[in-house]
């Protein structure tokens, strides 16, 4: 493939491809990703629809928060078993709302460590500045000048986080 045929304008996802240069030699070139450049909107549509549907199921109590986070982070039951060290049988139980309600805090903490979320967010739907770094649907800067933003920060106590509204100066 020639260098010019591989050039894609996609600044937010760069890749290195090997291609034929003008002098006939082969070498690396940095360019945009074809998949991201062409199909990112489709990807966001699919993942966005999927997350919305899951959120509705979570709100109506059909699935447990563990199932919700497992699915949006693309993990399977066996991977979650391996990562948390909790048996497959117990993970399956925690995926149901009834099983979730019986869980101990220490077990829940093992899940939140893997999902990279504060423990408190297993019981509340909150969209913070920090979450945007992890939100699958987040695509860019959001103007916070009118609404302010919610921020969560850690404390020395691993079970407690501080949630506060940050006022913007704009």
């Amino acid at each position, binding site marked *: *493939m020639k260098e010019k045929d*591989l050039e894609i304008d996609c600044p*937010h*996802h*760069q*890749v*290195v*491809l*090997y*291609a*034929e240069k003008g002098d006939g*030699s*082969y*070498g*690396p070139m*940095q360019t945009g*990703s*074809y*998949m*991201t450049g*062409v*199909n*990112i909107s*489709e*990807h*966001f549509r*699919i*993942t966005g*629809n*999927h997350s919305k549907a899951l959120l509705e199921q979570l709100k109506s109590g059909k699935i447990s928060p563990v199932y919700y986070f497992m699915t949006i*982070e*693309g*993990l*399977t039951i*066996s*991977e*979650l078993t*391996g*990562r*948390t*060290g909790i048996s497959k049988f117990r993970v399956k139980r925690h995926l149901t709302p009834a099983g979730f309600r019986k869980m101990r805090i220490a077990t829940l903490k093992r899940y939140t*460590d*893997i999902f*990279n979320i504060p423990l408190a967010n297993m019981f509340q739907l909150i969209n913070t500045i920090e979450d*945007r*770094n*992890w*939100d*699958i*649907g*987040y*695509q860019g800067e959001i103007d916070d000048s009118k609404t302010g933003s919610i921020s969560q920060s850690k404390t020395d106590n691993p079970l407690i986080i501080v949630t506060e509204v940050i006022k913007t100066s704009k």
Partner: protein
Amino acid sequence: MAAHCETGTITALLNHHGLNITEPMVFGIAGGIFFAYIKTPLMDFPMFAVRSMPGNVRTKFSERTGVKFITKKYRNPEKAEKELNDLLDKNQPVAVQVDFFYMNYFPAWYRIHVNVHFVTVIGREGDKYFISDSYHPQIAEVDREALTKGRFAGGDMAPKGFMFYPVNVPEKIDLEKAIKDGIKGATRNMLKIPLPFLGVRGIRRFASKIVDWPKYSKDEDFFADKVFKITIFLEDQGTGGGGFRFLYASFLQEAAKVLDNPGLVEMSKEMMKIGDGWREVSLASAKVAKQRDFSKERLAEIGDLLRQRADEEESFFTRLGKEMTNHNK
């Protein structure tokens, strides 16, 4: 930046140690080109790979060039962190295996849980680590907690704090022998493994099984995502394009110069064309996924393209093996 995380980290570490070597050369000497189509009863959906097993590039490269790497795994995260810090304080960059998901210098939509991502840690300042990642255009920063989580993620192919760095880079490497061994290894992997899902046989299996994929799907969105992933695995997930075939073509062009073998120049051109063919597979898959036409006929079209790649690669690697045998005479 580099095309692939494992070859990229090895190349960066070797360059740091004064060995002037390129990424395609590391990939080619290690015989990294491969194909595998895997579906076991435990897997929800089939998967395929276009390169050798993670870690194989380092071990094969080391075997064939005499470069010695120190490799370490840990049970204790604190010990792993301390030893990493000690090495960084001695100005020794270190490659570590991490779960890609925790490398939060990438945007969220880009990150997935994959335990076999390699990055080079080049320095630290307090709780901040400086990372050279093959897929990130600049030197990135990651905090201590995220790095530890990434290094000690559990699950399939868990990193277990794995890290490596070169300790002995020979002054004179027999590059000719290493290249020949690398090519022989690649031809063996692509043609001679007597299992129906590996090498060229694996490409053929993929070609015949792709029409069965809808039966593993939960819904249309899920299936579209899986078909898109063919393109992602071939083009975007650190392959250098065309499922590592462009990278291998670059290796063959460099190898031709080292071995002074004009036959390899022609073969490198041919490999570039095979890579173009893999790109056709990528584009066809992206089109099918976007149009959401998952009829048997459309999937069979992708299967036909794959069969052509299998035929081309079978002929290519047979002749490449002969070229090396004749070169020795």
